[in-house]
């Protein structure tokens, strides 16, 4: 429990094709767009794209690292993907506190690659008291 909204520490994660393949199995999402397949190479990006939910998982990890089960019980996420994520890439998830009212903290969240390209943006909100 916190008395004021806490700083949420960033999480950094290497997203390589091996991780994407493992995620495809774990999430049961075998869309060939994400795998090293002829379909992915012939698709609009010309190469495999990581699952958007794999990138979003880093955001949720970041929030649960700070808020624990409060995140699972009183958390809210709203995001849009801004650019495709091409493995291998290092993804950094960030949260900036925007509002702290009545025990509800709202953060601007974004994930970016090592070049600062925004991959995902949105908001996360959690009741922390």
């Amino acid at each position, binding site marked *: 429990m916190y008395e004021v909204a806490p700083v949420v520490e960033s999480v950094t994660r290497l997203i390589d094709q091996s991780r994407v393949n493992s995620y495809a199995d774990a999430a049961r999402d075998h869309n060939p767009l994400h795998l090293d397949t002829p379909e992915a190479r012939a698709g609009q990006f010309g190469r495999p794209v990581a699952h958007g939910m794999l990138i979003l998982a880093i955001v949720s990890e970041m929030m649960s690292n700070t808020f624990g089960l409060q995140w699972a019980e*009183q958390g809210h996420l709203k995001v849009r993907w801004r650019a495709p994520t091409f493995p291998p890439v290092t993804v950094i998830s960030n949260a900036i506190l925007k509002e702290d009212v009545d025990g509800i903290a709202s953060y601007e969240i974004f994930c970016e690659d090592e070049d600062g390209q925004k991959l995902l943006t949105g908001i996360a909100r959690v009741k922390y008291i």
Partner: protein
Amino acid sequence: MLEQLSVGDVFSDFYVVLDSKDVNSYLMATGENNSLWQTYVPPLAVGARILAEIIDDFGDLDGLMHTGQEFSFLSKILHSQKLNVRVEIGTFSKRKGNLIIAFSIEIYSESNMVGSGKTNVIIFGTEDNSNV
């Protein structure tokens, strides 16, 4: 089938159960390492499974792109807890030959809502766009 969808239609109604093996696979894949998830299910693991079910219902995945996502988590979920998921068409529009769909998701454990969400997808080039 897609062209026949309209707002309010129940797109899908199914059960989801994530056991310890499922959760461990998810944690290994994402790289997340939090002892909470030895007992409870990471919220996004539930979301990922639901999304996979929705996408699976499409059958043909060509041209489908996940563009936005919203989740509200209302209760912690135990390993092997049975969840009932109801997916409705929230919004549905056609633009320049592409379909833009928002799925509204409600997640229940018995009669209690434990989460909700909205999934936005665009499906490129699903219809003749000569009239657009």
